[in-house]
């Protein structure tokens, strides 16, 4: 019976790995002397918590499909863990990449960041994390080489979210741009409320960005809903619960604590909201620019 269970276990695992080989990226067996060590592991939306209990929620907030994890080892050198996250769309690969924007930009895939033994990049539907136990000059070279090999194995680039084009370029602090769907992600970057007052969900698209306008640093949040009615409901809720002022038309702005302004505008099925603006004029200007750009955005 015990032997049967072991065989069954091996069979299930082998099936899982074979499945991964057919549908996911083929990772190199060896790079710069680091060789595959141990069995690959595959995790799905249902099993992601087995890999990172307490962290899977962030990936599930995007349309995460599967994760392939592989370890590389070399004698007397730090181990390297390669994680390839397959998302349902290139938008979500870009989105999870923007969850943490701290690092030095490097040229791997469509966008990449390197920081002290960690290389992250996205290309097409894939988000890739390559992390070493410690950083050495050799490790950095190996991480870059491994990243380039993996990126080359992804045959095409993917499209960024079209909603990005709604961001006014003037004053945009580029590393501050986060693309996401749900309030789980929003509240990591900018805590708005604890009850999802904007009704964000898997069907909404949102972008949060930070701007530098003289001495002011307002935050701009753009949300696109599936239907105009969804945007209208969320906008009214935002006005009542956050600004404590019901919108009378398609826009509302209010002076809040510390003399800062918040508010927003609804444009069909999208909202442009601003927080921590230094004046009503600057709040209205930023929102107005975003709203006019939103009109030209197609999904």
């Amino acid at each position, binding site marked *: 019976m015990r032997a049967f269970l072991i065989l069954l276990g091996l069979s299930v695992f082998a099936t899982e790995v074979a499945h991964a080989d057919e549908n996911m990226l083929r990772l190199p067996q060896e790079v710069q002397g680091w060789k595959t060590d141990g069995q690959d592991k595959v995790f799905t939306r249902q099993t992601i*918590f087995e*890999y*990172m*209990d*307490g*962290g*899977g*929620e*962030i*990936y599930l907030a995007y349309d995460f499909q599967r994760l392939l994890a592989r370890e590389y080892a070399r004698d007397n050198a730090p181990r390297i863990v390669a994680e390839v996250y397959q998302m349902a769309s290139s938008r979500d690969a870009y989105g999870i990449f923007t*969850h*943490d924007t*701290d*690092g030095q930009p490097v040229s791997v895939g469509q966008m990449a960041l390197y*920081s*002290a*033994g*960690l290389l992250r990049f996205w290309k097409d539907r894939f988000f890739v*994390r390559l*992390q070493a136990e*410690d*950083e050495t000059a050799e490790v950095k070279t190996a991480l870059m080489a491994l990243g380039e090999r993996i990126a080359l194995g992804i045959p095409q680039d993917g499209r960024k979210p079209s909603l990005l084009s709604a961001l006014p370029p003037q004053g945009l602090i580029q590393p501050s741009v986060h693309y996401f769907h749900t309030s*789980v992600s929003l*509240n*990591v*970057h*900018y*805590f*708005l*409320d*604890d*009850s999802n*007052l904007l009704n964000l969900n898997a069907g909404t698209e949102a972008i949060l960005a930070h701007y530098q306008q003289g001495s002011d*640093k307002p935050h701009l949040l753009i949300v696109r809903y599936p239907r105009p009615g969804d945007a209208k409901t969320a906008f009214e809720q935002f006005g009542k*619960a*956050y600004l404590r002022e019901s919108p009378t038309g398609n826009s509302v702005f209010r002076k*809040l*604590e*510390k003399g800062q302004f918040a508010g927003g505008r609804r444009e069909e099925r999208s909202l442009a909201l601003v927080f921590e603006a230094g004046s009503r004029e600057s709040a209205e200007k930023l929102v107005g620019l975003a709203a006019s750009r939103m009109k030209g955005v197609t999904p």
Partner: protein
Amino acid sequence: MSRHDKSDRVTRRDFLRGAAYGSLGLAMGVEGLARAGQGSAFAAEKPLSQVVLVRNEAAVDASHRVNAEVVAEMLDTAMKTFTGEGEVAKALRRYFRPQDNVGIKYTRCAWHRIHVNQAVIDALTDRLVASGVAKSRVTATDYGLPVKDCTALINVPSVKVHAITGIAVSIKNYINLTGRESSYHYEGSSKLGEAWLLPEVKGKTRLIVVDMLRPYFGPGPQINPVHQWDYKGILVGTDPVAIDTVCLSICQKKRNLFKGEEWLISPPPRSLAAADSVYHLGTSDPTKIKLTRLGWEKEQLT
């Protein structure tokens, strides 16, 4: 603490005005919340809770390697200062008897890699044994601690800012004693305090020793090395809420320093506010906490 009723909604404005989550905004240094006549943060003259922080520049070297000998000295200093005893063994005997079965519940989250360092666990175990508790009566682990058989617990967490919980220190360290870890990541993890009130856990925690040698202040969920820093600190106390509040304050200041502007820990740790107001595990009001700071002062951040 359930917030299914949206009239109970807490917004950013409520939090920044100090109208929600108790004193967390004050602990996080939110501008405008300092209230005249209420005393300075962590300098209570008649404290509800005391916390001792010991730092040593030599605890972690330039390659981030931990010096076990220095860590042991830091633990000794912290214990003696916290209890006012001249000897560590005497200090520990205040909390543990030879007949106790002591569980050391530490944090070793394999995927996140913000572990409690072995040097802290070893030093604590050695000193516990030296104080008269037989080694066979001491169990140190993260998962699988036989809590029912333990008569006393030592909570030994690491420190990390957490994408779902806000911050993970001693209160979150007991999450895996519940056997339902994932269920505590909803509603801002506000129910984490429940773990402390489980029948097999309640009242057993005699001491908290925090490994703040290399804490984490980034958004997670996985580690980005630029968000981990060598703070080189050990904290000792008995109030989990007070200890977590001190760690919250330090991490918040580090985040601000890193970005060069206010970078609020987000979401705000509701679990910490609830541990105070709902589960009554201690105080999160920094004006009711006395923090004794010893050792290395550079970027103490508190």
